[in-house]
């Protein structure tokens, strides 16, 4: 006979204000098998848990139902409490009467009715719960970091520091990411390269870190502790081991008209290239779209000048397979495409640039050697207009609904650097709001206004019109003085919204992690588990999770590393016991289940059975590997005979819930 305890939580007033908790406890006390039904102010508190524990001991409970918040919040809390007094944790069920009842309903009578029904469903289910024991599966002591920007580098360094092997997969030919393109960093105005490149070198020299540059993740199989990842090393037509990075090939390459993506297309590079002087690995890459040798077999100069013999026109994409215990996603961001913003004339006028392009224009290693010149005629700009929130905080399909977070600060930085270097330049910043939460951030912005006399104007630019004299007419409203302005500018800088890298979406599919509608990775909990994805063993580092500046990115990168290390130090992890199992007596061996299993957890054996007519027969039957099964239940429906069932969500349990709800 079942002895079930029901515990109804008030959650302060979160539940009790809309659900008559006493009535719920009273109603559930009459359900079959229920021997005790209580309510309490905070069930998840220590004294609340003690109430549950004491009841389990005192009434020798065989099942527990807690009517409280979502099982995603506290299922584990109550399972642990039950386990601590000897009740199998899987004999605990949660009825979600907060998120799915008290918080969405207003009428006490109907909300209480619903809470009672939800409670009854949980009681009906717990009647059929079976004690489950979790198995264990080993952890591969190696981590994979996807993305080699500052986030990926920091995560890899921290994991390597703890003594674990880490692989970095970077799709570009060098690690460094966006930070390598940036000139100075806010709010300290120190040089980005000076703080980034030592970290890049450190990563390349660390014995625990392997860098796969010019590579992509092409397949991910397995699960936490036991991922098998296929990495595609794209053909760069240069032998990475032999290449010394001397640059002779680059110097001699006759194909010089290739847009230089590292400088945001503001100048050209050669068909064979090393993106920048401090690239890691410092290895040349041949661009097959432009290399004449690869396109039509005529040239071959680089191969002749390479004393190391590193050029290999016949190189093919290579695939390597590796096992990992943890995967950290650090795929970063990109500025959005501004083609649709006709009003800002980005496509019509070379002197209208994005902020990232301005970084390159001002960078000592950039196209102008650090002197700020207009891209169109290489003259000094005397009036520069910055436009904020281009594509950020937009409610239409052109832009992004979120605040890109970093623009206010980098624009203040740009404005300040320009006023510092070229005091004769007038700088206007059109803003909607200036958002500067962060240590020393508002002080930084105030310095731009007070010390550098940057003209901050509240209002948005409505139209940018390039004029025949080379100047640019910027038409904007000044909301505070209530007038419309026309500024005769030399350059316009657009603070383009940032968006997650395009490779993130297919990657999320491969990793079976979730993304929000903007393609940012979703964290397991927005407050309490910000660097983990909901998929066990997958961690999030940097701007792939949401817009972030460098200090935040580095902080999150280290946090993700800490979480990954926490996983890697374990020799084995406890498996989810809610896995499928096959009733061999019912199994037909038809292979339907095997076909739908995403993890390859099902195999078949020929087994000898004693049949009801006392003969023996050899039958093909399915068996599930509990360490590989993740418990989705696809097989249970594919099985025609009902031989497959799922622990914790069995056919009979779900039907009992259905019955209780429909009754």
């Amino acid at each position, binding site marked *: 006979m079942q002895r079930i305890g029901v515990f109804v939580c008030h959650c302060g007033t979160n539940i009790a204000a809309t659900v008559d908790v006493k009535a719920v406890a009273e109603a559930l006390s009459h359900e079959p098998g229920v021997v005790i039904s209580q309510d309490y102010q905070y069930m998840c508190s220590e004294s609340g848990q003690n109430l549950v524990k004491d009841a389990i001991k005192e009434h020798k409970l065989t099942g527990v139902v807690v009517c409280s918040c979502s099982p995603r919040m506290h299922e584990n809390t109550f399972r642990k409490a039950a386990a601590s007094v000897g009740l199998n944790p899987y004999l605990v069920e949660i009825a*979600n009467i907060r998120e799915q009842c008290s918080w969405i309903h207003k009428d006490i009578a109907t909300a209480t009715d619903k809470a009672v029904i939800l409670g009854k469903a949980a009681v009906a289910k717990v009647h059929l719960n079976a004690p489950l024991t979790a198995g264990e599966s080993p952890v591969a002591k190696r981590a994979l970091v996807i993305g080699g920007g500052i986030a990926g580098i920091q995560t890899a360094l921290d994991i390597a520091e703890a003594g674990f092997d880490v692989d970095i997969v970077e799709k570009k030919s060098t690690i460094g990411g966006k930070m390598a393109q940036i000139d100075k960093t806010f709010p300290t105005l120190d040089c980005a390269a000076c703080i980034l490149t030592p970290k890049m070198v450190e990563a390349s020299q660390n014995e625990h870190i392997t860098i796969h540059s010019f590579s992509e993740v092409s397949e991910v199989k397995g699960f936490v502790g036991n991922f098998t990842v296929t990495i595609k090393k794209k053909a760069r037509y240069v032998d990475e081991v032999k290449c010394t990075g001397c640059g002779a090939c680059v110097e001699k390459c006759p194909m010089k008209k290739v847009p230089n993506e590292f400088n945001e297309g503001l100048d050209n590079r050669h068909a064979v290239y090393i993106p920048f002087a401090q690239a890691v690995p410092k290895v040349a890459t041949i661009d097959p779209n432009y290399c004449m040798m690869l396109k039509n077999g005529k040239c071959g100069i680089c191969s002749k000048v390479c004393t190391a013999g590193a050029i290999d026109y016949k190189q093919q994409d290579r695939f390597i397979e590796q096992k990992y215990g943890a995967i950290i996603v650090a795929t970063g961001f990109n500025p959005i495409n501004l083609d649709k913003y006709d009003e800002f004339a980005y496509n019509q006028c070379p002197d209208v640039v994005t902020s990232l392009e301005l970084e390159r224009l001002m960078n000592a290693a950039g196209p102008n050697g650090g002197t700020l010149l207009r891209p169109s005629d290489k003259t000094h700009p005397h009036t520069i207009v910055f436009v904020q929130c281009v594509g950020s905080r937009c409610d239409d399909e052109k832009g992004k609904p979120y605040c890109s977070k970093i623009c206010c600060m980098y624009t203040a930085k740009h404005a300040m650097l320009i006023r510092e270097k070229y005091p004769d330049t007038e700088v206007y910043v059109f803003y909607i709001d200036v958002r500067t939460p962060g240590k020393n951030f508002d002080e930084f912005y105030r310095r731009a206004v007070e010390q550098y006399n940057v003209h901050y104007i509240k209002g948005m630019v409505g139209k940018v019109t390039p004029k025949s004299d080379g100047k640019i007419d910027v038409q904007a409203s000044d909301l505070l003085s209530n007038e419309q302005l026309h500024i005769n500018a030399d350059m316009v800088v657009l603070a383009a919204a940032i968006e997650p890298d395009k490779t993130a979406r297919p990657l999320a599919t491969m990793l*079976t992690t*979730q*993304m929000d509608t903007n393609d940012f990775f979703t964290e397991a909990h927005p407050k309490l588990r910000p660097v983990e994805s909901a998929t066990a063993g997958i961690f999030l580092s940097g701007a792939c999770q949401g817009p972030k500046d460098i200090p935040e990115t580095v902080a999150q990168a280290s946090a993700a590393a800490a979480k990954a290390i926490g996983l890697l130090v374990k020799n084995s992890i406890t498996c989810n016991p809610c896995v499928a199992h096959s009733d061999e007596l019912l199994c037909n061996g038809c292979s339907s289940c095997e076909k739908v299993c*995403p993890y390859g957890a099902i195999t078949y054996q020929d087994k000898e059975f004693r049949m009801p007519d006392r003969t023996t027969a050899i039958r093909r039957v399915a068996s599930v590997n509990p360490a590989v099964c993740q418990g*989705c239940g696809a097989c249970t*429906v594919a099985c025609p005979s009902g031989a497959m069932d799922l622990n914790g969500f069995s*056919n009979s349990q779900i039907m009992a819930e*259905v019955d209780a709800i429909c*009754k």
Partner: protein
Amino acid sequence: MQVNDNNFQPVIVAFCCNWCSYAGADLSGTNRLNYPTNVKIIRVPCSCRVNPMFILRAFQKGADGVIICGCHPGDCHYTSGNYYTRRRITLLYSMLDFLGIERNRTRLEWVSAAEGAKFAATMQQFTEDVRKLGPNRRLEDLRCRKQ
């Protein structure tokens, strides 16, 4: 049979996958987005766990509408579960339609963990659709009819 009975309170069973839609339902709770009390949620690990048997069982026992919610195609926590759901449920719904069961009594909806508002709106709409249809008579078990 009174079809336009405004006092009719349909029984709606919602199967929600643990990773996306159940979390989406929680989010609509967190955001205090109201939807009718008629909707009662059953948590399943994945939408592909929903056996057509469960749907028929719900109708048998007195449900007036059954909705299944899962991760958006491509976002399944288990990679491919919702793709199987989509085929199975399409075929089942088509069969129910073939047998003359009202189309609006069944629904499959993709709701991500971020779509609390969509969850609430979907439930509101679905409840309204079922309310318009009136009590389930074509696929009910008379022995289970509430007095």
